[in-house]
């Protein structure tokens, strides 16, 4: 029980901190991006940290969520909450369609998933679908634009995501997922349903990305397919989660706070060498901290929430 409280305490702390942050710091959009990447990194953690499958095209679900949101607003006249649900549903449906990818392993899964995200982008951005998605001309949702409300929604999604990860870390189901990750064959022999476990983790992970995508669409309100399907979202989510350390609650949180913080700090203080410094940083991190920041503690036998 003690463990659960540690985990929950951390989750509550982060959510409260992000909820009150806008009253202290006025670049609300930067804070929004922090909240967004906190959720995305944890969403990625749900699938990669607990099953070992790395979806390198994670942005596909994010984009599906953003466009699900946009289409619901434009064509169905939904308000933001309903539109968010549509976005989340779109992401989950996409995840269901992509479940056959689990037949692949390692880098093949990652690359196939990347290709899938690209394919969804090509469909959304195609001028043949202009009447539905506005094709390459982008959507404008200025009618629902409400940055305070969309920020609140993003914090709520973060709370949901963190609770989900706490549950995964402390439940029977999470335990069985990790058994699958370590050794799928023994897990199956011990009566764990490998397919069911992976699929649930996959759908949950997509659900998170879809919700975050919906809140992103609401927050920015004017965007092009290039924006909603930018590979940067996948890459950042992966880098942040791995830098912190996956399968923990703390790791991806630390990853976002530190790395995304550094990213913005470099961008503002030394813009001319922005990309170079950040690239170098990523290379150094992988080489010197391959198992993530929390491994510095777990190696010494300290349990990290």
């Amino acid at each position: 029980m003690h463990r659960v409280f540690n985990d929950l305490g951390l989750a509550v702390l982060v959510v409260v901190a992000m909820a009150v942050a806008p009253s202290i710091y006025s670049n609300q959009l930067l804070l929004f991006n922090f909240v967004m990447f906190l959720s995305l990194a944890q969403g990625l953690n749900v699938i990669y940290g607990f099953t070992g499958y790395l979806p390198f095209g994670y942005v596909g679900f994010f984009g599906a969520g953003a466009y699900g949101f946009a289409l619901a607003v434009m064509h169905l006249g939904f308000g933001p909450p309903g539109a968010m649900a549509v976005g989340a549903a779109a992401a989950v449906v996409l995840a269901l369609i992509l479940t056959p990818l689990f037949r692949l392993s390692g880098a093949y899964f990652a690359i196939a998933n990347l290709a899938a995200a690209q394919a969804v982008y090509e469909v959304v951005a195609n001028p043949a679908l202009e009447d539905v998605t506005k094709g390459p001309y982008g959507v404008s949702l200025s009618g629902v634009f409400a940055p305070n409300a969309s920020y609140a929604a993003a914090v709520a999604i973060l709370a949901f995501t963190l609770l989900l990860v706490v549950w995964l870390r402390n439940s029977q189901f999470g335990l069985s997922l990790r058994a699958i990750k370590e050794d799928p064959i023994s897990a199956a022999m011990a009566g764990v349903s490998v397919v069911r476990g992976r699929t649930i983790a996959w759908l949950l992970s997509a659900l998170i990305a879809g919700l975050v995508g919906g809140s992103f669409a609401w927050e920015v309100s004017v965007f092009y397919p290039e924006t909603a399907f930018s590979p940067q979202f996948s890459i950042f989510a992966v880098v942040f989660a791995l830098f912190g350390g996956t399968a923990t609650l703390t790791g991806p949180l630390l990853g976002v706070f530190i790395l995304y913080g550094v990213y913005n700090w470099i961008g503002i203080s030394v813009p001319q060498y922005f990309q170079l410094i950040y690239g170098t940083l990523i290379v150094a991190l992988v080489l010197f901290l391959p198992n993530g920041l929390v491994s510095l503690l777990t190696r010494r036998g300290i349990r990290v929430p």
Partner: protein
Amino acid sequence: MLRRSVVVIAALASILFVPARVEAQTAPAEIRIGHPYAGSGPYASISMPVYLGLKLWVDRTNEAGGAFVKPFNKKIPLKLIAYDDQSSTATAATLVNQLITQDHVDMLVSDSGSVLTSVAVPIARDHKQLLFNPTGTGAAFFTKDNPYVVLLADPASTVWPKYISELLGNSAKTAGIKRVALLYATNDFTGTQASTIRNYIKAHADTGLELVYDQGVPTATSNYTVLINNVAATNPDAVVALGYVGNDIAFLRNLQDSGQKFPFLFMIYPGVEKEELLKNVGATGMEGVFTYAMSTEIEYKPNFGMTAAEYKKAWHDTYPDGKYEFGFNAIAGYTVGLVLERTLATTESLDQLALRAAVQGLSGKLTTLDGPFEVDAETGAQLGEITPVGQLRAGGKMEAVWPLDLANGKPTFGKK
């Protein structure tokens, strides 16, 4: 309901904060100009020249002691706060917000092109900060209910094809150019122009104009050999091929390699970034091509700032290494600077709506090297700085051919 409450809250907030916004009588030490640019990634090639053009203007103005700011009745030095968004919209958005909320810039200039500008439009509006928009031409940005955006250096993308459409109509009547093939890259800038041209052709079927080929291709397309074959198979009189710089270079090189010729070929970038195209394609590969005759080609007589020729020399003096080609985007960056300078010189205060009013005051009066400056009072879209049609001659020379009042040459058509 939500929308209304947001409006109410915004109105209350503005009342609360009005006292803070009243200008102190003491002049600020510097005028802060914020600008995100793309130093890398797919938009860097259009964004860097705009940034460097703006920077050139800032540096020159500061050398002369700063820009004259009317409310304080004196020259004040400029400070350019520029951040690299790496062609990422998410990063561009946070940087725009950073410039508004943390750096408290007096004047906010968005990044170039529609994609990177798009995210800045709602943010600027939300913070009631006027967005000085260099080249983000997306039609969706300019609405009657948003006074916080103004397009400075080129007209909205629906306005661009006005004269090429007219020239097509005229050539159908006078030169038998009737069968038109339309090939365009599927993005906002070129796609919008394609639909404007398509609509014109459909509306003017009585002149004999007809579309015999109408296809979009991904903007990432870099090989046109097969597409050129396919276009040629429809036996067109005119080919309108709309793409970005990279598309146009690839198209013209493949066209030259294939030995195929079209009697009438219109493209965007041979005129917009002529020097870059000449270096990559060569003058022979561009001879006879119709294109936009930008301010790099037409010597407007500016009533403010350098002429195009003077500016070109200044550019090559300042950036001599050829890393950044002189072209329309280089002019656009400088034009933005000139508009900012005139705005500061005529505004009543540094309040954002006062700045907007001052920009409007320039409309119809200011002529820069980019042509007559004319802003739609209701939407902030650029109506001046029009894009006439030119045709390339031997050696990379260009003649304006349409409309007639700007023309210094006559259009010539190749053999079928």
